[in-house]
């Protein structure tokens, strides 16, 4: 015996429903520390208009955000701040590493610049370029939306998998004669 479903009713899974809501209203936290931040602003402005993808509500309070966009270099004095802000954002949350510097340190291979934020916080999308065009950032948002739709769950089970916990890169440079790190306190 079949149940009669009216024309204006759609049947779906709760997980997919939640992901669909989340992906279309990402609230970015603009962690813009350098020149990439300018391109991030251009992405939010009328010409490229990230609002077309539901991600226009840039909030400067991490409590209100669920997408961190790290745009620019992060130095070692800034990294504890970055981690604190990431921890202050409520779950579920995602991170886009925008530009060469945030992803790898870029040309700034010096003592104080962190060589890729993915060494210290989880990253979902990398955007190459110096700086990336707004279109590239928008593409990253679209790809992230696809990722959220594909694997998102109502209670955030996808974040608990082993694959999401594993290290993405080696922590230390493996150089011959490289000295052990100096003591620095845990954040």
């Amino acid at each position, binding site marked *: 015996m079949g149940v009669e479903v009216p024309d204006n009713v759609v049947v779906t899974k709760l997980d997919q429903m939640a992901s669909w809501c989340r992906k279309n209203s990402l609230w970015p936290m603009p962690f813009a520390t350098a020149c990439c931040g300018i391109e991030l602003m251009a992405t939010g402005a009328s010409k490229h208009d990230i609002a077309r993808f539901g991600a226009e509500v840039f909030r400067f309070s991490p409590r209100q955000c669920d997408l961190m966009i790290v745009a620019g270099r992060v*130095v*070692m*004095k800034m*990294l*504890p701040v970055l*981690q604190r802000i*990431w*921890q202050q954002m409520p779950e579920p*949350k995602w991170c886009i590493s925008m530009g060469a510097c945030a992803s790898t340190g870029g040309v700034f*291979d*010096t*003592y*104080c*610049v*962190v*060589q890729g934020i993915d*060494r*210290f*916080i*989880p990253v979902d999308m990398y955007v190459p370029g110096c700086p990336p065009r707004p279109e590239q950032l928008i593409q990253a948002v679209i790809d992230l939306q696809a990722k959220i739709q594909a694997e998102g769950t109502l209670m955030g089970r996808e*974040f*608990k998998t082993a694959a*999401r*916990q594993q*290290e993405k890169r080696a*922590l*230390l*440079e493996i150089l011959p004669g*490289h*000295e*052990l*790190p*100096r*003591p*620095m*306190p*845990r*954040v």
Partner: protein
Amino acid sequence: MADTATLDKLKARFGEADWKAGDRLPSASPGESRIVVPQSQLAKYLKFLKTDCGFDLLVDVTCVDYLHFRNAKDRFGLVYCLANTTTSERLIVRCYLNEPDLTVESAVPLWEGANWLEREVYDMFGIVFGGHPDLRRILLPDEFADHPLRKDYPLRGRGERHNFHRLTREEG
């Protein structure tokens, strides 16, 4: 030239044995002269230059590490750039320091603006300014254990930039 008057005043006050006038560089601007003074008496010279020669503006405090520099005899060159805002005269006061005694007297009592400049020199080169009211690191984190603009400090550091706790999804 206007600056010879200052040099004459210095001669009259300190004699000619301790300090010397530096060579005039092709890049020097008009009315700019350079002197080299002994480490122990730097503050005395600066005080005289401020009170008696009218150098009321401290433009910059910086330092140069001469390690591996050709023909260099001393390790560090500490540089105070002064200006006289009435006559537009400029004076570069330099003193050479060698390890292990990297202490000079602070210029903060003379120019309040020396405060952060001297903190930066301390941060980057490890020059210690005696009598400075607040000699802490200014740019690098307090836990940093080195002075990175010294030439024997590696460009990529000694691993400090990667010595942080990693956040995983689970903790975040």
